[in-house]
């Protein structure tokens, strides 16, 4: 089935603009007479904000205004799946991580905005900082979010504290106990992954402008999902969606990091307040501290195997560090679990996953969405087992590999496009792998 344009190496349609510098990234946009925005952020990872004094900061020459929660007491919280992140922290309420925003500084120059930011006085009452999800799961751990409805099921291990569990998910396929009984040996290990920044070259950045003629706030900033960012900004500001217009700029990489709202809300507030164009560009430091991370996952994996090299049961326990806010956590941690066996036939699968609030920078979307971490666990297990069996790791994979008709840990039966075995054959061919592979 030969095609004329599909299957061909057509040059990227935006390549020339990017190479010549024609492409308009947020910082390349030109606005007359624009103002600079900077954000004053949390001073402690877990604390009650007792006082926020911007009076000295407002006196800095060039400062147009400084906005705090007092100016906008009716804003709603935002977030991709669960709305749990405040736009600005209110005096008397908690900051939960170092990225929480306390004040929006608007000034004629960047220098003035930065100088004013240093003059904002913050008083806090420190609380216990929970950086380790294991601590957050203890029954006596303080609660990070008191006002989130209970999203948990009744299937949580009764020995753990539920107060910081954002969401739990479970797998139960086949008869796992019987599967382990049928095994000739069991391999059990714990794996740990780390916080990773998606590190797109372009940091979060944008402009906004309030159009008084039609009461529309226009925002020029990158988003991986324009209409979702629009909806999140609009609901936070109690506006109809049509009143928030988001215009995509050229995007300098994202990898999941540009799914969450970043500059958009603070820009929208500043633009509407000043009725002038406003610009906000994060520094790398600010981007790393205040926007989403790849979740560290703690994965306990237990695999039952027969001496002839087949998998009889697989069990996982997954704890994901969700950090201070939900972001994509309600989807990421268990997506990892749903891929716990890798692409191998296992009739009996059990799993529990917990996404746990901590005072770390929040976990969100990053390329692979939990399954990248899980692959480190399952493919380590597979390799360890192959060595125990003294079997060629390629052959061990091949004889357990998914095919048409295989079922995933979710019990989804795969009906088409399952060419895993071909990938094993081809990759080993390319690598001139020693050893034969057979069914």
């Amino acid at each position, binding site marked *: 089935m030969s095609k004329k344009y599909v299957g061909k190496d057509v040059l990227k349609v935006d390549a020339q603009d990017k190479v010549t510098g024609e492409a308009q990234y947020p910082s390349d946009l030109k606005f007359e007479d624009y103002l600079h925005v900077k954000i004053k952020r949390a001073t402690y990872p877990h604390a009650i904000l007792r006082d926020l004094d911007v009076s000295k900061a407002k006196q800095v020459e060039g400062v147009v205004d400084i906005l705090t929660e007092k100016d906008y007491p009716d804003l709603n919280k935002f977030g991709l799946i669960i709305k749990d992140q405040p736009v600005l922290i209110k005096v008397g309420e908690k900051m939960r991580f170092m990225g929480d925003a306390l004040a929006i500084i608007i000034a004629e120059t960047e220098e003035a905005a930065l100088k004013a930011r240093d003059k904002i006085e913050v008083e806090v009452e420190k609380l216990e900082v929970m950086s380790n999800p294991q601590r957050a799961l203890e029954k006596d751990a303080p609660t990070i979010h008191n006002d989130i409805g209970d999203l948990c099921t009744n299937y949580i291990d009764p020995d753990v504290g539920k107060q910081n569990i954002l969401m739990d998910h479970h797998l139960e396929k086949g008869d796992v106990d019987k599967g382990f009984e049928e095994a000739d040996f069991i391999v059990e290990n714990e794996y740990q992954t780390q916080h990773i920044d998606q590190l797109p070259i372009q940091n979060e950045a944008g402009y906004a402008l309030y159009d008084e003629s039609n009461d529309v706030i226009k925002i020029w900033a990158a988003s991986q999902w324009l209409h979702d960012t629009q909806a999140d900004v609009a609901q936070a500001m109690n506006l109809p969606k049509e009143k928030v217009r988001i215009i995509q700029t050229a995007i300098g990489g994202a990898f999941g990091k540009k799914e969450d709202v970043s500059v958009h809300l603070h820009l929208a507030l500043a633009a509407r307040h000043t009725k002038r164009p406003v610009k906000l560009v994060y520094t790398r430091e600010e981007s790393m501290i205040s926007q989403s991370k790849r979740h560290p996952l703690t994965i306990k994996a237990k695999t039952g195997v027969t001496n002839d090299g087949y998998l009889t049961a697989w069990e996982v326990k997954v704890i994901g560090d969700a950090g201070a806010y939900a972001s994509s956590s309600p989807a990421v941690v268990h997506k990892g679990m749903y891929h716990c066996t890798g692409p191998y036939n296992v009739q009996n699968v059990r799993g529990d996953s917990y996404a746990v609030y901590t005072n770390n920078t929040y976990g969100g979307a990053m390329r692979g969405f939990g399954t990248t971490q899980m692959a480190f666990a399952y493919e380590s297990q597979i390799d360890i087992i192959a060595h125990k069996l003294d079997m060629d790791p390629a052959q061990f994979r091949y004889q357990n590999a998914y095919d048409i008709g295989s079922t995933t840990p979710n019990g989804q039966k795969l009906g088409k496009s399952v060419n895993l075995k071909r990938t094993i054959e081809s*990759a080993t061919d390319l690598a001139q792998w020693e050893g034969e592979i057979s069914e």
Partner: protein
Amino acid sequence: MKKQGRGMASIMFGFGYGEGFPDHSIAEVEITKDKRIKVRTAGADLGQGFLTTMTQIAAEVLKIDPSYIEIVGQDTHKAKNSGSTSATRQTFFSGNAVREAAEEVMGKIYHYGSLYFNSNHPELTVKDGELYACDECEKITYWELAEIVEQRGKELKAEATFFPKTYAPDRKTGQGEKIYVAYTFMTQVMDIEVDTDTGLIEVMNVYTALDVGRAINPQNVHGQIEGGTVQGLGMAMMEDQVIEEGITINADMTNYLVPSIQDIPNFESTLIENNDSGGPFGSKGVGEPTIIGASPALSNAVYDAIGVRIKSLPITPEKILNALEEKK
């Protein structure tokens, strides 16, 4: 001493949001009198080639050179929802929406073209932006047809939505009929060299076979394999945002290490193309799967090279040296 090792990883990735989430993309295709074909989509191009993929799909269906295709609507007020560029979904979701919208427009080209030429549909030839009823007959261009259609008060324009169904898994068992629209598979073999004095790892070769269904743009798929793998090697060997008691202590690119040009291995890759998935022309998504194999393939190669198993990421020189010390 330098020791060589070889590791393998096979992975799967269920793409699209799945789990019963109302995942869909809307796209519109229009032939305009100014000799353009406008594809309206709000989908974001993050650098991977979304705009190019949509261009190729529209060009293929509409039988016209890709240079005539223009992607418009990167604006909440100018296009409808295309879903996110995430979850490895855009080629599959927006690609199908663009394909369907383009097919609708092709149907209109045949409809109005056959009225103009007073022919039946099979007699009509549509090719390279022109249509004609026989080889020696009059030809008209798409743009001329757009003008003719406009005189009838109609447009050569169509919108389509791709909205496949998935089901929410049971909360207690996680079981369900269809949790993800489809899965992508990949196998990688990685050759490395470990310096047992310094603990440094050098990745020499990466051999990849990726089950893509069909590559809309093979070069861009190879780009995904290489970019994804290198990003995965960052996770495997160096990247670590260290947060101590809630405070990031390396929030800068001096102390947060990522792969640079000198860390990039040789690549040899094969695309498995059976045209057997549900995306446009049998394709499926590849963006995320390409990062997933790197960390286990590297870890397994480390074991092959020096006989130690590191179970926490990243696999730093310090961890290698400590593990070698313990092994003694």
